[in-house]
């Protein structure tokens, strides 16, 4: 590799973006000149960076607009401040206590709040913050009311005081660095791709057996712990705590830092914090209007660089410094589950309003079969797949798989029982690499390295090895279909449900996908494939069923079904019947 190539590869990895941010910070150092005020600003930047890294878990990774991060921060500040002043505890105790207090609040509110979607979640978290603020203002005996509590001790560790200036600044940035390392370790593992899948394609995440509620809870709790930790640092730095720390402007600052820096980039959180803390200083000449600069910076970022500065930087890098192909991880063998399980559907019914989409279907899929499900639009094919996979609940009837009844079970549980699926409209994370997209489906995976290994094995089998590092969104549809197939296969399912896998594919792509499915089936995979294209199905299916009006009208070998007059009629539609009176 050439020297320039090496440099590009170095720039290419996220950890180096982190170093880049650090370098930027150092480059700005002459401006600080080490005077107490500059050191204080830098210290505060570190505190906000820590809180923002935490906020990225819930806002960036889980994709939920929480407005409670300021509350976790303020609660941490209060907890540490009160324990310091009233109980005389040192930082070694107030710091974990602050994290515990924020974490406890997160656990308490998680139950009512976490299951809410989008705007409701935002408002509910805002409401939690307002309640905490009111308690702080009104519980005067403990919180000091509107005036708060002054005289919080300096940071002291086991009796050893950390003085202001350099020592405190280094401690804060040390802890922020520790937090950054922890966050990187966490999201750099299996959690990263799972978060992305959950955020961008929640249905697909569930179908991959990912427990969305647990993952959201983890993100919320992590953000609270980081927020509480930052709050403790803040209170020992400014040495007073008042209701201001719980008010909305703190929350807005954290939001602005995360949006401006980048929603999932740790370097972005650090960069954003340094910028936002210093921004008002640079706009001092505007006098009383200087705070408007905050709003203007936030607005400008969301308009021109929606993925923040780090996102813009990454895009610029992809444009000007395209990454050389990284070496592929070594392939790891997959665990193949050679079960002899049977799917048994009995009298299954599902209505939508007055329409019976599935109207009493009895169907058995034996182990090792390759079943094609055909029928016109609206005949109930997709609904049938959704019912088996748990995305829909039946109104009547039962579905048995292996030795248990699975109808009514959540999709994640059905996936865990060994049934995998793909979607008619591709549900991939477009911005994420093929390798990570496939790895996200490895629900048993303990670390990303082994998941990547298994993914590489599958990508090799499916002819995707060359594009492993490319973002899924940049691939033609045929390859994306294969990527989704690989994601469904990585957890080693015994039954594979495919919903219109040939949609959007060219003729050649169809033939090659059919060959792949045929090979999978020969290797022992049971297939149930909904498809419109009979030619495609005939290439690998051992049996076809044809649906019409939510019922099975033909069942048998492909040749038999294909020539069935009832099937042909269903395909071409029925001629309109003249009504008696118009």
């Amino acid at each position: 590799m050439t020297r320039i190539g090496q440099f590009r590869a170095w720039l290419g990895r996220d950890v180096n973006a982190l170093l880049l941010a650090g370098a930027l910070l150092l480059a700005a150092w002459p401006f600080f000149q080490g005077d107490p005020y500059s050191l204080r600003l830098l210290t505060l930047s570190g505190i906000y960076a820590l809180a923002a890294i935490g906020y990225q878990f819930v806002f960036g990774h889980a994709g939920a607009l929480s407005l409670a991060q300021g509350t976790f921060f303020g609660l941490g500040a209060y907890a540490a401040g009160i324990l310091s002043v009233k109980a005389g505890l040192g930082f070694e105790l107030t710091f974990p206590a602050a994290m515990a207090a924020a974490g406890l609040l997160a656990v308490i509110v998680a139950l009512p709040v976490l299951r809410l979607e989008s705007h409701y979640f935002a408002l509910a978290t805002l409401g939690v913050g307002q309640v905490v603020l009111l308690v702080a203002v009104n519980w005067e005996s403990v919180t000091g009311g509107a005036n708060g509590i002054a005289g919080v001790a300096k940071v002291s560790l086991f009796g050893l005081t950390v003085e202001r200036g350099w020592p405190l600044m280094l401690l804060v940035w040390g802890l922020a660095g520790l937090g950054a390392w922890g966050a990187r370790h966490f999201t750099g593992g299996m959690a990263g791709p799972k978060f992305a899948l959950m955020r961008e394609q929640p249905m697909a995440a569930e179908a991959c057996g990912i427990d969305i509620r647990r993952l959201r809870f983890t993100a919320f709790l992590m953000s609270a712990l980081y927020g509480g930790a930052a709050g403790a640092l803040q209170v020992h730095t400014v040495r007073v705590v008042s209701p201001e720390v719980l008010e909305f402007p703190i929350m807005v600052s954290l939001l602005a830092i995360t949006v401006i820096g980048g929603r999932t980039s740790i370097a972005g959180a650090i960069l954003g914090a340094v910028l936002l803390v210093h921004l008002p200083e640079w706009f001092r000449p505007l006098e009383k209007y200087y705070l408007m600069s905050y709003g203007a910076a936030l607005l400008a970022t969301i308009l021109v660089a929606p993925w923040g500065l780090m996102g813009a930087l990454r895009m610029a890098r992809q444009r000007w410094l395209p990454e050389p192909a990284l070496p592929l991880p070594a392939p790891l063998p997959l665990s193949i589950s050679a079960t002899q399980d049977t799917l048994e559907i009995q009298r299954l019914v599902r209505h939508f309003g007055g329409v019976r989409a599935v109207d009493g279907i009895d169907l058995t899929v034996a182990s090792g079969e390759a079943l094609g499900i055909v029928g016109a639009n609206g005949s109930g094919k997709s609904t049938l797949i959704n019912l088996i996979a748990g995305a829909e609940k039946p109104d009547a009837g039962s579905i048995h798989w292996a030795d248990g009844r699975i109808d009514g079970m959540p999709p994640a549980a059905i996936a865990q029982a060994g049934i995998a699926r793909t979607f008619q409209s591709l549900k991939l994370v477009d911005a994420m690499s093929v390798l990570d997209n496939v790895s996200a489906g490895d629900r048993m995976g303990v670390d990303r390295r082994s998941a990547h290994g298994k993914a590489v094995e599958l990508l090799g089998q499916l002819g995707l090895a060359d594009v492993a590092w490319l973002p899924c969104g940049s691939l033609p549809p045929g390859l994306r279909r294969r990527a989704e197939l690989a994601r469904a296969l990585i957890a080693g399912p015994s039954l594979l449900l495919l919903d219109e896998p040939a949609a959007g594919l060219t003729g050649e792509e169809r033939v090659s996908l059919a060959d792949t499915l045929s090979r999978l089936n020969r290797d022992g995979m049971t297939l149930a494939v909904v498809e419109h294209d009979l030619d495609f199905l005939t290439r690998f299916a051992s049996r076809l069923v044809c649906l019409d009006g939510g019922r099975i009208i033909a069942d048998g070998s492909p040749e038999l079904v294909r020539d069935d007059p009832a099937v042909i009629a269903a395909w071409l539609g029925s001629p309109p019947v003249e009504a008696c009176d118009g």
Partner: protein
Amino acid sequence: MELLQLVINGIALGAGYALVALGFVLVLNATSAVNFAQGDLVVAGGFMGVALAGLAPLPGIALLPFAMILMAAVGLIVSVLAYWPLRDRPPVSVFISTIALGIIIQNGLNGIFGAEPRVAPAMFGTGRFEFGGLALSHQSLAIMLVAALLIGGVHLLLGRTQLGRMLRATAQDSDIAAALGIPVGAMVALTFALAAALAGAAGLLLANQFFVTPADGGNFIVKAYIAVVIGGWGRIGGALAGAMLVALFETVVAAWFDYAVATGLLYAALLVILFVRPEGLFGEAAGRRA
């Protein structure tokens, strides 16, 4: 009797909140986005009244049309800056851009007027009606009347006019509205203008009895947000009822305990409602996204 008095006070406050919530829900329906600057637009309306009164010492009712027209212009600016460039992005982008715009408005007002509470002129003058031990200030009555007129006007506009039908069609399915020849972009901008004018009216009305400071926007947006959630996301009637409930709750409970407890209980009630009935007390707008 005391309770009745509180209810009267609460209805006056609720009438003001209802205007705010109405503007919020109109934008929500038209764009599926939360306009978080709506609270700051209320405050801007209040200061608009303060500034106009400084230029021409007229009663509030004479200033109201001017304030609403100016605020409508501000609403157009909001739509151009914070909505239009983001119309194809996820709704959370608009949430954030309007938060940003709110900060700009708040600090701009702070720069111009300072942080001290200011008073906008009364609608007709001061004084109160008394009957049977109950008091109703002229201003409270004016708030109720003006709010009722404006809400009635919006109702007629949306329900009876071709423009109103076009606004609603745009809100319900903008692609199909465009395919029917409706100028969708103009309709959305107009919705923002209308919402800002309503916020401005609320600001002018409330800034007499309750004063106005640049930092009040957060309070208004949260109240409107709560009103819309408990009224059922996207339901206009529900939002108005929700605003009234929020104001009554606040007024009556505040009299028994104090304001802080009332607000705390309001949020607690909100969390309970969200937990038990996430679709709001009256259900989400039926078929709105059908």
